[in-house]
């Protein structure tokens, strides 16, 4: 499947048209929606954290690009998580409507891997900053 087809499948009109199955129990729909909203807030928190690091922290001595190294990936991760959250919601809702098993989510893995990476970069930046 091409990227354009995949992107088109995420548009609300396509989601509604291809929903299939039957309307699930409202409680499951609500739970799916809350999960999406929780991921959205996580995405917003990452964006504000990234912006705060770049704009509000004093520069690291000896590592002039240190703030950007830490902040920019957080903002990008926020945008990626927002899109991934919507994709997950579509997949989950489709599975609920069709009575299929819930798909496995890769979002916790993405979040954990990226935050670990940023923590390592932060440690390196702090060490370099302390050594100079």
């Amino acid at each position, binding site marked *: 499947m091409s990227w354009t087809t995949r992107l088109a499948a995420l548009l609300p009109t396509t989601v509604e048209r291809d*929903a299939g199955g039957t309307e699930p129990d*409202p409680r499951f729909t609500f739970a799916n929606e809350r999960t999406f*909203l929780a991921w959205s807030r996580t995405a*917003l928190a990452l964006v504000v954290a990234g912006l705060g690091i770049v*704009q509000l922290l004093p520069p690291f001595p000896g590592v002039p690009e240190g703030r950007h190294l830490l902040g920019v990936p957080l903002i990008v991760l926020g945008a990626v998580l927002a899109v991934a959250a919507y994709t997950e919601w579509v997949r989950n809702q489709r599975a609920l409507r069709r009575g299929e098993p819930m798909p496995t989510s890769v979002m916790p893995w993405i979040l954990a891997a990226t935050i670990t990476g940023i923590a390592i970069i932060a440690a390196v930046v702090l060490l370099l900053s302390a050594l100079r």
Partner: protein
Amino acid sequence: MTAPGPDETGDDPEYRDSGLARERTSLSWTRTAIAFAALGGTVLKVNLATGLIILVIAPVIWQLGRVSRGAIPGADGGPPAMSEVSARRLFVITVSIVGVALLCLVIAILGRSAPGALR
């Protein structure tokens, strides 16, 4: 997954009334709107125009949650199914967050930093 049958309801209030789920979802929408407002307030310190744009999104998000506060639509010719209504609302939130992230990325890369601006 379907709703439990009449003999499966038990004593769990959740099974007897999905209004609790609706209430939790409504609160979740409110928290999301507050998160937007908080982000807008922070960005306001760095870039006035962008901060105001994000602050304006907050009440829109809160308003989008109104479906979660309304009646659960019926399947027999009533209002549209919840998943249909949700797709549009959640798509709007996703586009808003990606837009806000892009704006913040531009500010982070091109904007002048203001250490201690929150003090």
